[in-house]
């Protein structure tokens, strides 16, 4: 299917994938598995209390001192409209770098790093996922697992994270 | 015990270079930015085995410093070398008259400086 191929190409282009596959750090949000391009991940740290930022939407948990750098923390559950839960000992912050900005994502728990072949990545279906698909790059298949691959650029520019977004909005 | 050298110069670059050369050669270095500071260091308990001083300095110039040092009983016989750009003899004469041991003419390289220092400071 030509359409499918071009969609995949476009997808890979967006994600900067030049090889046939890519590695993703996967994590748990509720029942679902999400993945971010491993190249985007700076570190994973346990959840520590953050400082709330005045007058910001609820999904922006606050800011954290990461070795002297002020890093905003986004709660993905809230961002994706999922119910909030009590934080557990598995709750972690995935620190990612997007367009030279650092931010932290609060997730329920991290899972594995998975290799996902390019041909196993499909565009996200318009419905079915709990998440607004516009934040997804596609759905990847690794073995019997399905992973929702996050579009980090979109995530950063959406929802009150940057100045340009606020002005554009 | 390493020998202590008091290095007096208002130019930090010059001071650093002299100090660096001396400490690389195993001397202990005390620095001062002008004559007044140098006198202060000596009064504060520094007993140099050698003084290396510039002549043109604010607050207290080199010649006055040499005179001051020679007045101190403890440093009466301590070698004093002056750093001078002056090719003319007047400055050297003035310095010697004040009690300077010798001189190092700028510009000098570390080897030249150490050669002069060896002259006056017994190993």
């Amino acid at each position: 299917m030509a359409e499918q191929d071009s969609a995949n190409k476009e997808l890979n282009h967006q994600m900067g994938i030049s090889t046939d596959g890519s590695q993703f750090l996967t994590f748990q949000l509720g029942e679902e598995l999400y993945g971010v391009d491993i190249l985007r991940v700076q570190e994973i740290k346990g959840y520590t209390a953050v400082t709330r930022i005045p007058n910001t939407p609820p999904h922006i948990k606050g800011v954290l001192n990461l070795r002297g750098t002020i890093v905003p923390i986004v709660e993905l559950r809230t961002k994706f409209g999922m119910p909030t839960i009590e934080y557990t000992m598995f709750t972690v912050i995935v620190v990612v770098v997007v367009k030279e900005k650092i931010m932290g994502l609060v997730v329920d728990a991290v899972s594995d790093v998975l290799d996902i072949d390019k041909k196993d990545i499909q565009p996200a279906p318009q419905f079915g996922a709990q998440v607004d698909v516009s934040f997804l790059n596609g759905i990847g298949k690794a073995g019997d697992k399905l992973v929702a691959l996050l579009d980090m650029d979109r995530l950063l520019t959406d929802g009150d994270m940057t100045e340009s977004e606020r002005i554009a909005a | 015990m390493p020998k202590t050298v008091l290095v007096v110069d208002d130019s930090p670059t010059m001071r650093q270079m002299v100090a660096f050369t001396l400490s690389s050669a195993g001397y202990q270095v005390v620095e001062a930015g002008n004559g007044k500071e140098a006198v202060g260091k000596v009064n504060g308990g520094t007993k140099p085995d050698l003084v290396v001083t510039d002549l043109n300095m604010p607050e207290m110039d080199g010649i006055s410093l040499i005179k001051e040092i020679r007045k101190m009983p403890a440093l009466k016989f301590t070698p004093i070398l002056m750093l001078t750009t002056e090719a003319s003899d007047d400055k050297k004469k003035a310095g010697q008259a004040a009690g300077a041991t010798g001189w190092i003419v700028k510009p000098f390289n570390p080897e030249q400086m150490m050669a002069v220092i060896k002259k006056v400071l017994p190993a």
Partner: protein
Amino acid sequence: MSTDLSHFKDAFFEESQEHLTTIEEGLLQLEQRPGDIDLLNRIFRGAHSIKGNSGMFGFTAVSQFTHKMESVLDQLRSSQMVVTVEVTDLLLQSLDCLKALIDCAKSGEAPNDELVSALGARLEACQNGATPTKTVAVTAAPVPSHATQEHHYTITWGPPQYLFQRGLDPAQFIKELGELGRVKIASLDTSRLPGLKELDPEQCYLGWTLEVETVKELKVIEAVFDFVRDDSTLTIVDRPTSGAPASAMSDGPKPLGEILVESGIVSQSELNQALSQQKRVGEILVEQKAATLEQISEALKKQSDNAPAKKAETPSIRVDTVKIDRLINLVGELVITQSMLSDLGSRFEMSQLPVLLERVAQLERNTREIQERVMGIRMVPIGNAFSRFPRLVRDLSGKAGKKIHLILSGEETELDKTVIESIGDPLTHLVRNSADHGLETPAERLAAGKPEQGIIRLNAFHEGGNICITVEDDGRGLNREKILAKGVKQGLIAESDKLSDEQIWMLIFKPGFSTADKVTDVSGRGVGMDVVKRNIEGLGGTVSIKTTAGKGTTFTLKLPLTLAIIEGMTVRVGKDTYIVPLLSILESIQPKREMIKTIVGKGELVNVRGIYLPLMRLYDVFRLEPELSDPTKAILLILETEGERVAVMVDEILGQQQVVIKSMEQNFRKIEGVAGATILGDGTVGFILDVRGLLNISRNGTAQAA
């Protein structure tokens, strides 16, 4: 020993910049205070240090040129010459040339030889009494080697009596000779010894005859006695052991000078003096018209072209020693804490847990403070950026035919080095603009009933988490009509547009906008003001204009303190901690019930000694959960910004501390009412209040995000 001093080059360049500034400032002040000997000494010392240091690194062009400047300065200093506008002009031009030479030395580029020699010639001509030029001999001619020749020197030496008083020791001389060859003391001369009664133990009465066998040249042997030669009786006789004819010199015919000295026609020092006056080949050739200056310059350029390639500049920073001392003290404390901890660790029992926790807390404090102080090292006073303006204004007054008095203030205001470096150009442009457009000609000023001399004032100060720099003139002010007409003509605005004054003034920042009647060398070229605005905005700052026709114009640059450190008051609202810049706090009060009024449409007001101030509950503005909602139980901070006052209500004042401002924009975006973030004592993040922003929020309603 192979000690490489080249890594001190950066220090040299850094220090030279300071000397250049000192010289420039000094020269400018000299015009007002021509007789100030301290000032002259200061200028002289600056030049002298550059000369001495540049020689050390082999920057011959720099040291030679500085030497010429120094000679003129020396004559001024010794009152052999008087300070005139011409001399000052020449010295200032020479200073520019020297700057260029140093830059060339830094980059490895070839200097403008023509300018250097032209100015050099003028400097020399400037000196009174036609003192002959001494060239600083930097490179010594290589000594020809006759390594294999074995010499047998007989040295008869009667040292000066003062030997000991100059820190010299005869044993040291003998030892030094011993390092050159085999030494034998042939005889001891005690003839000068006085009787015991007259004997002063601090004098040297002895003399020696020494035999030295060595391969070294006579010169080397003589050099041993360099420091005492003038006052010693010294003869050195050389008897080459290989049987060659006895001679005090090495082989080859004697140089003329040597013969003249030996025959007593001239003294050694006279000879040295004459030798030191020898000119360079190039100079001689030019004098003899064998070659033109250009040809020589060309050849010299070729010579210098072979110099090493351009070196990348490593930025460095000069730090106030007080800051370093504080850091050293802190490191000392850190070391103590560390040793207390390891001591505790070596014999730890659970009962000592509180002690352990306390020491760990201390370690945290130490570390944190060190971190803050290290950040503070980047902070430098803005005076560094201001220092170029006295000179600039002097030049501008000359060019524009205006009389300008420059006033600088707030030079001690500290801001980040990178910010200082980036504001230089925009500031220069504003000052140029004020000198050229802002201020009137002396005739116009007199006609307008103003003093002939116009004023440009540069000021810097901290305000509300920002640094403000103002460039103010007392000139004609902006011309509303002219700007409007120009704006319409350029199609920037429509004729029908209704614009506020502020909007009109901002038009001058539009690209291509210029109202100057004539294009001058200085400004009015239609470039610049837009660049100023762009540069300042690039730094996250703003530019604003205040102007009154006939009275003058003030440009205000407001810059964020991205890395700056401020004194802050830490306050608490519920569980949250905020920092209020100390500079904006006038006082803190606990109001009585009757002081508080609520006025419909205006909100709450508080009466502070007869003046009603708006009362702002921080928890309202920031949507926090407070502990206290009753103003009479809480604390009101009276804050001021840009002349406006407001009472901000918080639960409690926690204390006062220096905080390092960290950017929120780096990883996030600007938050209305927040000037930046900082790391608090416990490692968490606290926000620094922006009073201006708070006022905006309270006026426009909460800036709730989508």
